[in-house]
């Protein structure tokens, strides 16, 4: 954390914006393909979130560090090479360290390459900001994405299988709501979470307005 002249508050701001105000899933609605496909359990959501987080943070730091070396006409190709490299590394590591999780996620790990969130952050942020801010941005966006995936996966697992992180919650009496584990359940739950997120935001805006009027 050296490069003076940057106000530490700015880095903090970039970090938290991805977690809440510009959450990649709930606000920007980016990266929906892995989001809907693999979040039928909390563990799968966490693994996918962690892999995307790793790829995003590494790519952002690298691209921000070399931004002045990358000629504009080939920048997208270069980003894709960088991202694809980290995705392959993540894929191999997961296969070596957590083979059961890797089996569950299958092809979706390789498909992180085409996650528009990751390429989007390179083009919109890392390629024109100092490393420190790019790191903060990637940590926030990657963290926000992972949290959203775990939330969606957790909610679907609780309703669809009666467990959370594989731990049974309700005993044998529970009749699982199987559709929640299937692709339509992903859309349903995403819709509900988007609704919840939007209404919390709206309530906060109204509250802020009211306090301003009162003041």
């Amino acid at each position, binding site marked *: 954390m050296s490069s003076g002249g940057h106000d530490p508050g700015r880095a903090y701001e970039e970090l938290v914006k991805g977690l809440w105000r510009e959450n990649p899933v709930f606000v*920007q609605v980016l990266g929906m393909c892995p989001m809907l496909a693999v979040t*039928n359990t909390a563990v799968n959501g966490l693994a996918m979130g962690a892999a995307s987080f790793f790829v995003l943070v590494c790519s952002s730091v690298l691209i921000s560090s070399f*931004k*002045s*070396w*990358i*000629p*504009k*006409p*080939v*920048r997208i*190709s*270069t980003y894709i*090479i*960088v991202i*694809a*490299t980290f995705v*392959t*590394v993540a894929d*191999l*590591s997961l*296969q*070596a*360290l957590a*083979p059961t999780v890797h*089996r569950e996620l299958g092809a979706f790990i390789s498909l992180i390459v085409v996650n528009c969130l990751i390429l*989007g952050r390179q*083009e*919109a*942020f890392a*390629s*024109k900001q100092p490393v420190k801010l790019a790191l903060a941005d990637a940590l926030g966006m990657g963290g926000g994405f992972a949290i959203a995936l775990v939330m969606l996966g957790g909610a679907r697992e609780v309703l*669809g*299988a009666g467990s959370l992180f594989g731990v049974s919650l309700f005993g044998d009496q529970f009749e*699982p709501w*199987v559709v929640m*584990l*299937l692709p339509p359940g992903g859309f349903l739950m995403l819709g509900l979470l988007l609704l919840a997120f939007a209404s919390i935001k709206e309530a906060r805006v109204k509250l802020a307005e009211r306090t301003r009027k009162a003041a």
Partner: protein
Amino acid sequence: MSGDLVQLEGRKGASAGVPDNTARLVLTLTVAGLLSGIAIVSAYEITRPMIAANQARALERAVFEVVPGAERLQRLAWRDGALVPAVGDAAGEPSIYGGYAADGSFAGYAIPGEGAGYQDTIKLLYGFDAERRRVVGMYILESRETPGLGDRIYKDLDFVAAFRDLVVEPEIELVSGGGAADNQVDGITGATISSKAVVSIINATNSLWRERLFAPGAEPPPPAEPATEEKP
């Protein structure tokens, strides 16, 4: 979104010093590709033994699961009309596995089979006792059957247990509502297609392999070392 700003701000370094000539573009992509290649190959080399060990362990676990009493395994490959002991990965060669008990006696065969399920190919492994002509265990290696319904072919323990002692001749039959004969398996309600698929995969695989097996008592001796399958 804020992506549009890129066009306006441009890249200071690129525009200031070096012009974007062709050589520079090619050089950038070449260097990026080279570094990427080095990174991927290193990661591959580092993880390869771990991945191979994981796969060997998973296979071993599955074989020991379907062949009761097995503690060592030996791959048996079908080459030129004969079943021969083989080492290393199957790599496309038609193979089954022989399970051996701790004392070196032959415990049974583990035979992989695959076929169409409800969603996608189901890959399974079943144990076969050639002397008693019975299936003695079944393990699903890979399936994408519907969660909560079709996935009961491996989550429903009653269904899995039905394959622990099952006569295969003339054929395994899938019945609904408590089959009594010893070649009958109770289908899973709500997963008829998936359970039918498991039965027909075993029937098809078995009709292919049963004439290829060694005569009882003529099996090859157990592998010298406790089997850890790894490429030389």
